[in-house]
């Protein structure tokens, strides 16, 4: 090769070399620059600048180091780098909302961020160092952050028992049980309840074919005089348990035909005493007496009635039993009488107590229900269906199985259909790619999927068998939270060991009291050692609390201790023998170890000490702010007018020492009185005795206006009873 050519080539080569060097240097220069501007580094630098604007810069920067910061909890398999940017997460001075994110501190919660990391509760990707990858769904990392509205779902992943701090989650779980979702779906941590939908093997004796038709078409709807829907699942806070199945005309005819033929045991008409019926025929206005008895028996503790007041329809009453506004137009009169006398003979798991009826009361109350709780237009929109034909009946039976009715309702000869719907026990941990959205116009997220499925299943999947539940937005969010909490059995052994399983308390009583306990369904309202309802006071320590004589008279004739409560103990018309047995049992068995009756002697309570107690009560502590004596005082706590006859002295002392030790969620504050003041207050309280016991008649007369006045307020919610009931 000639030397000039060599020179030319080397010149070109030199130029190419120079150019590639420039490119190389540029690339080399770009990478530290790119590195310098990485998102997390910019947040770290801006945190330093931010800290310098705060008065406590030194404290804020004490633990700060440049670089990726991570929380490592090996036993939980947690490596969360969120604290690389969320730098103020555990700085107590950065809690205010004015602090810009991502530097704001976490609000105080029972779990410390340093021990648990962030992803355990908030989801997202702990390893990511880019904002989008950490927070949202990306191709590689699917799990997005859990919106803060549903964050209680994360509590539920480990805490299978309800926590006071997570009302939304508890409500969601309650709704899942109430609607018997596990009738069709498998759900994590929810047991099949004892009471599912009504047993239908005898339904033909209870209601007409037309009523079944109407109910299947539009479950529990009340129309006002203009024909508008006044109370339905949307407007009444308690949604009907029965969902809407969107049945066609032919399906309604077939299904109603099939159900109306289910009469496994005929109803024998009950023979009232001739005297009672004769008295009625002379005095038709006795229907008012029936209404009075209906109210006095506090049927509305469990059953709601729609009442029109000031032009608006509201529901008053409880939600333990069905709503009864138009029950007179629904049920067969002979069936009603038999039901009231012995509910369990029709439906063994019914929560309704078996009252001891006098013929007179039974007759007047049934007359009231049949004459007043009716709607003449109730069936006007329903076509005359006539008797069921064999082909309709046969189609109806097939429909009953096809629609999954047997998942909730029992019929002799038809096996319950379990796993009729898909398994949902790990729904809360599913990623979006595992879900089928169909044509639904909703954002492709797990939450939008769950809510669309519940609100209108057909929009997501036109072939869905799932019925439609009318839920208000708060309940929809609650049920979504509960479903999101079900992430299946944890695969990580660290988490598996953390799961706090729910406690299934049960309280079974044998013997004579067992019969009373079952007959009057005490556990529907009262709680016994953690088992039972929350409507009425917990009776776990009733034997330590109440004196036997008071218990006995209360069981026979319950008078209220809390004048503002609308839910009261019904009068069961117990026999003296039953009341004795119940009082004996409560007295001997339901005891608290903190109350030692033998340690208190009535000789300690002299008149001088009691006078001192009165001073303490009225002046120093001003207990009258919350408690009533006679006709003056507050009504936050129970009335103390007759406390000397009601409470055991040892209970009063233990209560004054520490109320929460006896009833953990009582709102009575713990004062930590000195022992001398406890003695004095007890002595004073024991002097408070109602001398002449209120007669039954007088008691009732005074109850009635109180009830009528307070009934209006009952609509404010089911929390009523639990809040104040627990407050006892």
């Amino acid at each position, binding site marked *: 090769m000639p030397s000039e050519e060599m020179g030319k080539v080397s010149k070109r080569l*030199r130029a190419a070399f120079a150019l590639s*060097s*420039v490119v190389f*240097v540029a690339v080399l*220069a770009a990478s530290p*620059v790119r590195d*310098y*501007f990485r*998102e997390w580094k*910019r*947040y770290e*630098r*801006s945190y330093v*600048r931010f800290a310098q604007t705060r008065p*406590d810069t030194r404290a804020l920067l004490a633990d700060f180091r440049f670089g990726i910061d991570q929380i490592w909890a090996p036993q939980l398999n947690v490596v969360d780098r969120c604290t690389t*940017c969320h730098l103020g997460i555990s700085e*107590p*001075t950065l*809690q205010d909302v004015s602090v*810009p*994110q*991502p530097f704001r501190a976490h609000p*105080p919660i029972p779990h410390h961020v340093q021990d648990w990391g962030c992803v355990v509760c908030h989801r997202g990707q702990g390893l990511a160092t880019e*904002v*989008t990858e950490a*927070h*949202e769904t990306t191709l590689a990392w699917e799990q997005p*952050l859990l*919106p*803060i*509205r549903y*964050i209680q779902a994360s509590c539920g992943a480990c805490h299978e028992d309800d926590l006071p*701090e997570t*009302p939304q989650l508890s409500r969601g779980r309650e709704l899942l049980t109430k609607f018997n979702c596990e009738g069709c779906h498998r759900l994590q941590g929810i047991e099949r309840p004892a009471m599912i939908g009504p047993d239908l093997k005898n339904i033909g004796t209870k209601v007409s074919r037309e009523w079944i038709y109407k109910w299947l078409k539009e479950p529990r709807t009340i129309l006002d005089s203009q024909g508008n829907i006044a109370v339905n699942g949307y407007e009444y806070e308690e949604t009907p348990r029965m969902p809407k199945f969107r049945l066609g005309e032919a399906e309604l005819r077939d299904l109603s035909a099939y159900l109306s033929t289910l009469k496994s045991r005929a109803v024998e008409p009950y023979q009232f005493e001739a005297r009672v019926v004769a008295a009625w025929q002379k005095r038709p206005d006795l229907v008012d007496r029936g209404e009075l008895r209906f109210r006095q028996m506090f049927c509305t503790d469990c059953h709601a009635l729609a009442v029109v007041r000031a032009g608006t329809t509201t529901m008053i009453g409880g939600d333990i039993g069905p709503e009864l506004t138009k029950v007179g137009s629904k049920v067969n009169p002979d069936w009603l009488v038999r039901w009231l006398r012995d509910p369990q003979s029709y439906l063994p798991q019914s929560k309704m107590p078996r009252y001891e009826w006098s013929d007179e009361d039974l007759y007047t109350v049934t007359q009231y229900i049949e004459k007043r709780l009716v709607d003449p237009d109730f069936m006007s929109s329903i076509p005359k269906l006539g008797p069921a034909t064999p082909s309709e009946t046969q189609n109806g039976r097939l429909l009953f199985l096809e629609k999954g009715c047997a998942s909730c309702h029992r019929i002799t000869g038809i096996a319950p259909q379990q796993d009729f719907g898909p398994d949902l026990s790990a729904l809360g941990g599913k990623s979006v790619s595992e879900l089928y959205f169909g044509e639904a116009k909703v954002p492709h997220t797990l*939450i939008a999927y769950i809510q669309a499925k519940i609100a209108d299943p057909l929009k997501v999947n036109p072939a869905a068998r799932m019925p439609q539940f009318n839920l208000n937005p708060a309940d929809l969010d609650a049920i979504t939270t509960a479903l999101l909490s079900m992430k299946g059995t944890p695969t990580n052994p660290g988490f598996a060991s953390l799961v706090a399983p729910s406690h299934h308390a049960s309280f079974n009583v044998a013997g004579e009291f067992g019969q009373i306990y079952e007959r009057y369904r005490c556990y529907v309202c009262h709680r016994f050692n953690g088992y039972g309802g929350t409507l009425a006071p917990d009776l776990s320590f009733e034997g330590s609390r109440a004196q036997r004589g008071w218990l006995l008279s209360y069981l026979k004739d319950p008078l209220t201790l809390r004048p*503002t*409560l*609308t839910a009261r103990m019904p009068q069961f018309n117990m026999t003296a023998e039953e009341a004795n047995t119940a009082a004996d049992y409560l007295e001997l068995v339901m005891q608290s170890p903190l109350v030692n009756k033998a340690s208190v002697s009535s000789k300690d309570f002299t008149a001088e000490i009691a006078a001192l107690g009165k001073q303490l009560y009225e*002046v120093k502590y001003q207990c009258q*702010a*919350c408690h009533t004596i006679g006709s003056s005082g*507050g*009504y*936050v706590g129970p009335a103390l007018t007759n406390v000397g006859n009601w409470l055991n002295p040892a209970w009063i002392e233990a209560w004054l020492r520490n*109320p*929460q030790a006896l009833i953990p*969620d009582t*709102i009575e*504050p*713990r*004062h930590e009185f000195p022992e001398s003041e406890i003695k004095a207050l007890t002595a004073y309280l024991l002097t408070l005795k109602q001398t002449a016991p209120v007669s039954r008649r007088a008691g009732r007369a005074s109850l009635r206006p109180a009830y009528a006045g*307070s009934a209006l*307020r*009952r609509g*404010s*919610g089911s*929390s*009523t009873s639990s*809040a*104040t009931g627990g407050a006892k």
Partner: protein
Amino acid sequence: MRRFAPILALMFLGFVSACRKHGSASLTVPEPNRRESAPLPPDSLRSTYDTEQDWSNPDHVIPLNYEQSQGKRLFYAYCVWCHADSTPAGPSNRANLTPNPHLINDGTALNALSDQYMEDMIALGGSALGKSAMMPPYGKSLDRDQIRALIAYMRAVAQPPYQKPARPGPSYERR
């Protein structure tokens, strides 16, 4: 090679200085959410933990964070009976008491009181602070976090709205 050296140096300097300028210009504001690379989180993420309706204006819904919502729960369990005009059970005990207890959202009276004072009032009761003994002490039944949550809730619902003092003194936050 020498001819290229100044060009290279210039390019490098220019590159670096341009970036510096860009960087320092945007980094002076301590609002990291404004950055293009860090978009605002979607609406659902910013939605609040819980809400409470303004008692005097049903259209006004007040957002609550976790602590405030715990305060709301405690308020409706312990305080509502005397510090509201209607309660979950119906009538309120408020009218029964003299002097009338303040409504929880009474900003006119309560905004002026410091967090420390409120904490003492709840924990020690009225008589300890020279007020009505009808306000019982809750310091033995509620823990400190619960009392703070109650105060946080009270501040959130206050009407007129509560303004945090411009410069918080060395009050309980630093203890």
